[in-house]
């Protein structure tokens, strides 16, 4: 027998003894490498709902749904769009808000509507114009970072008090004109700027204050 044939036979025998290289998945479990990038799983506790991940996600797989009436924000990771790049984990504001699982890879399903996981966050709304300011958790997280300086900002400060149960948020005063008085309300940046300017230059410059 010629050498090329012998080589084939040798390989065939080794293959017979060693068995196939691939794993038997789905009939037997498969363990990916420790570095494996699988399903991104958001962490309800560590995520502050800032939405930075949705801005960096190259596949726009992270959806943010803001419900103004209920003052809540939903962050949804769509696994059917996700490319498992790990950018959301890498660039997360808190660095712990979402983690790519290294074991969960089997996402196959016949109904892609089930392919998501989401978390809900409470939003702080402007008491004057009903605009979204930020998720409450994000403001509290900022307060923690600012430490004692947090008390220099009325909104951060009141969010802290609210969190301690000392003060209550009046979610809405109704849409009305911003006045100097409104300095001590939880305001969106636009209304805050306006009330600051009123404080500085008087009402007369402002259409809304008249």
């Amino acid at each position, binding site marked *: 027998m*010629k*050498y*090329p044939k012998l*080589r*084939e036979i040798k*390989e065939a025998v080794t*293959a017979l003894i060693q068995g*196939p*290289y*691939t794993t038997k998945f789905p009939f037997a479990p498969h363990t*990916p*490498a420790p*570095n*494996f*990038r699988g399903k991104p799983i958001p962490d309800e506790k560590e995520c502050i709902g800032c939405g930075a991940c949705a801005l*960096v996600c*190259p*596949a726009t797989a992270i959806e943010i749904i803001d419900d103004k009436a209920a003052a809540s924000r939903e962050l949804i990771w769509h696994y059917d769009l996700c*490319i*498992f*790049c*790990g*950018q959301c984990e*890498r660039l997360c504001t808190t660095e712990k808000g979402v983690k*790519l699982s*290294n074991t969960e890879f089997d996402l196959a399903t016949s109904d892609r509507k089930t392919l998501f996981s989401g978390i809900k966050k409470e939003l702080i709304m402007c008491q004057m114009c009903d605009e979204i300011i930020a998720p409450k958790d994000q403001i509290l997280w900022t307060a923690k970072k600012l430490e004692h300086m947090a008390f220099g900002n009325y909104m951060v400060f009141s969010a802290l008090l609210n969190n301690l149960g000392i003060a209550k948020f009046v979610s809405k005063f109704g849409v009305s004109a911003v006045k100097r008085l409104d300095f001590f309300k939880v305001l969106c940046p636009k209304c805050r700027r306006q009330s600051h300017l009123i404080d500085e230059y008087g009402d007369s410059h402002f259409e809304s204050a008249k």
Partner: protein
Amino acid sequence: MSENEKDKKTTIIPIGPYHPLQEEPEFFELHVEGEKVIKLDITLGYNHRGIEKMAESMHYDQVAFLVERVCGICSASHPFAYVNAVEDLADIVIPDRAKYIRSIIGELERLHSHLLWLGLAGHFLGYNTVWMWAWKYREPVLDICERITGNRNHYAMFKIGGVRKDILNADIAGIWKMCDELIKPLEMFRGAVMDDPVIHARTKGVGILTKQEAIDWCLLGPTVRASGVAIDVRRDDPYAAYNMVDWKVIVTENGDVFDKAMVRILEMLESVKIIKGCLEGLKKTKEGEIDAKVKSIPAGEGIGRHEAPRGEVFHYVRGDGTNRPARHKIRAPSYMNVPSNQISAIGGTISDAAIVLAAVDPCYCCTERCAVIDTRTKKKILSGEDLVRLSQQRTKDIISGVWKPK
């Protein structure tokens, strides 16, 4: 014979263009007279996905992930060329450790891409043992990829200014061992192609591209190196760690399918050498120094090249000082290589066409969409499977001695 009568004698075999598995849908129109191919028409451009336009609507950082998806097999080549282009634009110098890691990923990709090609080539020849072998030994390469990057393909490693994930020094020994284990099967492939009489009969002297033709048609990669033209971006315009490790450009002279296979197999052995050199290099650099921390990209122009498994891939990026590219242009190697079939396939037979068209390593799933249509009766004679079957039949004929190679 008048021109008209001649026309009647030709049969047109359309190959392509649509197949969901293909990376680049191509449409080949083989004009045949009996068994002999006399003319070949090639049409490209069926798969315009608007990637360049999409790139202009994404941040520089996100584009790396987008271009990764230009091609499933070359999923390191495009981001590699892209980051080279942006780094050229912004004059960024990347840390040595990142250079080594980039080269490792680039070479791992060449390994698994060439093994994939080798398997397919074996399949088209009807030598399915080679197919099974090559794809079996492709698995450990993909396992190394998964171990380093977190995925078998689509590595998400390339980042402007460096790489996204480090290779820990503790891991180097394990990866080294996995690379070592690749050498034995690669040597076996070298032997299998070198001394197998059937492979010789099917590939030697088939689909020849001379040196001059290769230069005239501006071919790239293993296709041109098999014709005796020694070009390789990795050596000619060094980037990443390619000038920091020891390796050589593989060149052969004959330009036939056999030489193209040989170039790819020998290149794989060089790739293992590069990877090992890079792993050595990693030990000399500090863990964690993998990113130049780029803050902004100025206005300007940059070009980036990378020697992909199929040849040089070229990216051009123009920035206008914002965080998105103003213009992004991509040229993939198959775009240059595929037209060369116009010379290499002519004069051969239909049964050789399958392997000749595959020799430049376009994604070959298109063959399965082939149909032979009689131009007079518009009747289908051959399907895609038939073309592969024809090619495989010839191999069987050679083995049983029915058909003698010239």
